[in-house]
C-alpha cells in the first residue's frame, strides 16, 4: 500500500471509531478533545476530522504501536514527542478552537455552565431553616453579599440564603432537608479560595461553618488537636503556641481561612516541605454526607489499618462529597529555634544549586524554601511600600529553619551561609532570629498575592512542575505575551516544585486570557505537571482536569460522586468537569 492509501484507510477507520466512541461515553482516546463541552456539535465533528487527519498522518511516520498506548499515558499535547514535532502550531490552533461555543462565540472552559434543575428556595424552606437555626438564617442581601463573592472578587453568585449552623446535628438536619427538597448547597469556610470554589454560582444555599469554631480537645502528649471545622487557622496556631505546639500547615490566608476549608481543599502552604500534606497530618474527620448522614471517622489514632481509609477521599474533595464538620490533626512541637534567611541569586540555576546545598547542609532543620522573582519585589516596593532588605537581584529565596537547639542551628546555618557566599551561589542576603524581623522577612513572600491585587486584574496559575523547569514557564510566558500583559511574575514553593504564575492587566481582558490559556496548560501538560498544585479546581479549573488526569480516573471520580451525592446537591458546578454525566 502506498503511503496515501494507508493514510486514507486509517482516517476512515479511526474517524468512525472516534465518532462512535464519543457519542457513547465520556471516554475519548485523545484527551484534549474532552475539553469540548457537550453535546457533540458540528464544530466538534469538524475538529475531530482535522485532528484525526493530523494524528494519522504522523502515525504513518512512526511506530504503529504508539496508538495502543494512547489511552494509557499520552499527555494531550506532547511537544517533545516525535509525534508532534512538526505540528505544534496546528494543534494549538485546534485546541484554541475548542474554546469556541456552538454558535462560534468565545466561551471559556472556566466560565459557569448552565444552571442545573435544582429547586429554588421557598418561604416554607426558610421557615424550616429558621426553626432549626433561630437567628442564624440570614436573608438580608447586604449580609449575604460578602459570601457571594470570592476573595479575588472574580466570581459572584446570587444566593439569597446564608445558613450558619453551630453543631454537626444542625448541619445534618440542613443537608437531609436540602437533599429531600433537591436544593443545592455551597459549603463555605473562610472564603479565601482562589479558584471560585467557595462561592455559589447561582442560587445555591450557602452553608457557612463560621460559627462552628470550638476547639474540642487537645492532647499535649500526642499533640493531637480535635476541633470543629470552622476554627480559623491563625486562632488554632495561637492556641497551640501557648501549649508549645504549632499547626502543621501555614499559609498567607491564615487570618481568615478555616481548618475545614483547608482540609476540603488539601491546602499546602509554606510548611509542607517539612511537615507534609494534610493527607498525612489529618488523623480523623467528622463529616455530614449529602443525605444528612453523619459519618464519624474522627479518630485520633496515629495508626489504624482497619478497612478503607475513607477520610482520604474527603481530603481535597472541595466540598463535593460531604461537608466536613470536625477535624483531628496531628501537630508538631513548636521549634525552640527559628531562623529565617533572605537570599539573593543571580540566576535560577544558582537558586537550584543553593537548594541542593541547603538540603545537604541544613537537611533536618529546613522547614521552608520559597522563592520570588525581581518582578514580585518591584510590586512589593511599589504597592505595599515594603523595602528590599538586600540589594536588587533577579531571584530571592526565603529559607526557614526550625530546630530544637539554637546553638546547633546557628552553627549549621553559619556553615551553610559561608559556603553559599564563598562559592558565589548567593550574591547577597540577610538573617533574622527575632520575631519582628522574622515576620518582616516572611511578609515579603506572604504578601505578594496582596501586592498583585493592587497591580490590576490578576490571572492566577498554580502549577506543579519538575523543579528544574519551574522558571522556564515564566520566561516562556513573558515572551509569549509580550506587551499584552502588565506584569508577569513567578513565585512560590520551589522546594515542593510548585510555581505560582501570575499575570496582571489593568482590567479584565479576554484577549489576554485567550493568549494565556490554553498555552499555560499545554506547557504544563507537556512536562506531565499539575495544572493545579494546591489551589484545587473549584469553578475555574474544573474543565482542565484532563490536562493532568487521565479520562478513566476522572470517570471513576464521577462514579464516586454519583454514589455519595446522587442528586448532586453538594457544591455543584465545581471540581469535576462538565462533560461527566450526572444521574
Amino acid at each position, binding site marked *: 500500500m502506498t503511503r496515501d492509501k494507508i493514510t486514507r484507510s486509517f482516517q476512515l477507520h479511526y474517524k468512525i471509531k472516534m465518532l462512535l466512541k464519543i457519542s457513547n461515553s465520556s471516554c475519548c482516546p485523545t484527551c484534549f478533545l474532552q475539553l469540548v463541552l457537550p453535546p457533540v456539535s458540528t464544530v466538534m465533528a469538524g475538529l475531530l476530522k482535522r485532528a484525526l487527519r493530523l494524528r494519522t498522518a504522523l502515525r504513518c511516520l512512526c511506530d504503529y504501536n504508539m496508538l495502543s498506548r494512547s489511552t494509557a499515558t499520552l499527555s494531550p499535547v506532547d511537544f517533545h514527542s516525535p509525534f508532534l514535532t512538526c505540528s505544534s502550531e496546528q494543534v494549538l490552533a485546534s485546541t484554541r478552537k475548542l474554546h469556541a461555543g456552538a454558535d462560534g462565540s468565545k466561551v471559556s472552559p472556566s466560565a459557569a455552565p448552565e444552571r442545573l434543575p435544582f429547586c429554588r428556595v421557598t418561604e416554607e424552606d426558610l421557615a424550616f431553616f429558621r426553626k432549626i437555626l433561630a437567628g442564624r438564617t440570614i436573608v438580608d442581601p447586604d449580609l449575604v453579599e460578602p459570601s457571594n463573592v470570592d476573595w479575588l472578587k472574580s466570581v459572584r453568585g446570587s444566593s439569597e440564603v446564608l445558613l450558619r449552623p453551630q453543631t454537626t446535628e444542625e448541619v445534618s438536619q440542613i443537608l437531609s432537608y436540602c437533599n429531600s427538597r433537591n436544593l443545592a448547597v455551597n459549603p463555605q469556610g473562610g472564603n479565601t479560595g482562589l479558584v471560585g470554589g467557595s462561592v455559589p454560582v447561582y442560587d445555591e444555599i450557602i452553608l457557612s461553618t463560621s460559627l462552628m469554631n470550638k476547639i474540642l480537645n487537645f492532647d499535649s502528649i500526642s499533640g493531637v488537636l480535635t476541633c470543629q471545622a470552622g476554627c480559623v487557622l491563625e486562632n488554632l496556631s*495561637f492556641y497551640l*503556641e*501557648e501549649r508549645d505546639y504549632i499547626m502543621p500547615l501555614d499559609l498567607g490566608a491564615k487570618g481568615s481561612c478555616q481548618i475545614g476549608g483547608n482540609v476540603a481543599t488539601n491546602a499546602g502552604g509554606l510548611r509542607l516541605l517539612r511537615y507534609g500534606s494534610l493527607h498525612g497530618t489529618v488523623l480523623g474527620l467528622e463529616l455530614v454526607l449529602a443525605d444528612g448522614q453523619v459519618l464519624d471517622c474522627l479518630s485520633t489514632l496515629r495508626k489504624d489499618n482497619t478497612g478503607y481509609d475513607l477520610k482520604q477521599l474527603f481530603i481535597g474533595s472541595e466540598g463535593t462529597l460531604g461537608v466536613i464538620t470536625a477535624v483531628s490533626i496531628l501537630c508538631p512541637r513548636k521549634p*525552640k529555634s527559628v531562623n529565617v534567611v*533572605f*537570599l539573593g541569586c543571580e540566576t535560577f540555576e544558582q537558586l537550584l544549586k543553593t537548594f541542593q546545598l541547603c538540603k545537604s547542609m541544613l537537611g533536618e532543620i529546613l522547614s521552608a524554601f520559597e522563592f520570588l522573582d525581581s518582578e514580585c519585589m518591584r510590586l512589593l516596593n511599589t504597592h505595599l511600600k515594603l*523595602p528590599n*532588605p*538586600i*540589594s536588587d537581584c533577579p531571584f530571592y529565596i526565603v529559607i526557614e529553619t526550625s530546630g530544637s537547639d539554637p546553638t546547633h542551628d546557628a552553627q549549621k546555618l553559619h556553615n551553610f*551561609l*559561608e559556603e553559599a*557566599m564563598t562559592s558565589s551561589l*548567593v550574591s*547577597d*542576603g*540577610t*538573617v*533574622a*532570629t*527575632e*520575631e*519582628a*524581623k522574622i515576620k518582616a522577612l516572611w511578609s515579603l513572600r506572604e504578601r505578594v498575592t496582596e501586592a498583585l491585587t493592587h497591580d490590576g486584574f490578576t490571572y492566577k496559575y498554580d502549577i506543579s512542575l519538575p523543579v528544574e523547569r519551574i522558571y522556564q514557564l515564566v520566561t516562556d510566558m513573558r515572551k509569549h505575551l509580550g506587551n499584552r500583559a502588565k506584569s508577569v511574575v513567578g513565585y512560590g514553593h520551589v522546594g515542593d516544585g510548585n510555581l505560582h504564575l501570575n499575570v496582571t492587566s489593568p482590567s479584565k481582558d479576554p484577549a489576554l486570557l485567550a493568549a494565556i490559556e490554553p498555552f499555560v496548560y499545554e506547557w504544563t501538560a507537556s512536562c506531565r505537571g499539575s495544572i493545579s498544585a494546591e489551589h484545587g479546581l473549584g469553578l475555574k479549573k474544573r474543565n482542565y482536569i484532563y490536562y493532568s488526569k487521565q479520562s478513566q480516573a476522572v470517570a471513576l471520580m464521577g462514579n464516586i460522586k454519583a454514589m455519595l451525592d446522587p442528586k448532586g446537591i453538594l457544591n455543584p458546578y465545581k471540581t469535576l468537569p462538565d462533560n461527566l454525566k450526572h444521574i
Partner: protein
Amino acid sequence: LSCKVLSSVVTPCYCFVSPQIRVKPDNTGVVTDGVKHSMNPFCEIAVEEAVKLKEKKLIKEVVAVSCGPQQSQETIRTALAMGADRGIHVDVSGKDYENLGPLQVSKILAALAKQEDAQLILLGKQAIDDDCNQTGQMTAALLDWPQGTFASEVSLEGDKINLVREIDGGLEHIKINTPAVITADLRLNTPRYATLPNIMKAKKKKIVTVKPADLGVDVTSRLEVLKVEEPPQRQAGMKVETVEDLVVKLKEAGRV
C-alpha cells in the same frame, strides 16, 4: 567636622510575644526562662544612627556596648553586623543582672565614656521590657554632659549638634555642645538589615569583656521589688437597649 569616637549602647532586652508574658508563681517577677533575648528596638535605631554618621565620615569609630550575661555578646554581634567597629561586653550575670537598673547602667556607661574618651553617647530612649526611660538622662547627669533625648533628627554642625526632639507639644529644635548624650526615638531612622557579607565580617570584629568592678562601679541595687502581679482580668462588657437602662446600670455599679 572633627573626628570623634562614638559610643553606642545596645541594651539586650527580653523580647516577649504578647500572650506569653507570665508572672512567676512567687510574684517576684516575670518568667524569663526560654524567652528570647534580643536587641532593644530603640537601641537598634541608635546603632543605625551611629553607623550612618560614620558613613557620612562625621565620626571616627562606633563602639557597641552591652551590659549583661554571656548572651549579650549576641546582641553586640548584631550591632557589629550593622556596622559598629568593635564591642565592649560588661559582664553582669545572675542576681546582679536581675537587679540591674538604669542607675547602675548609667554609672557603667559614664565610666566607659571616660575610659574610651568618647565624644558622643547614643542610646535608645527606653528599654521595651522595663520602659524606664532613665538611662540616657542619668548618664548625662553623671558626666555633666548636655543631653538630647527623644531625638527624631540629628545633625552635626562643627562641634555642636542640632537636634529635633519629639515632645508632647510637637517638635523642639535644640542645639547642644559636644560631648553629649543622645537618646533615639522611633522616627529617627529605619534600622538596616544586617547583610550576609557584613554578618561574616562581624565575626572577626573584636569584643572585649570587662567586669563592672574593673570600671569601679558597684552594681548593687538601691531598689527592692516587693511584688509583681498580673493586671486584673478584663471583665466582659454588657449591652443595653436604651439610655435609661444605661443610667440604671451605671447607678447600680456606683459609677454615677
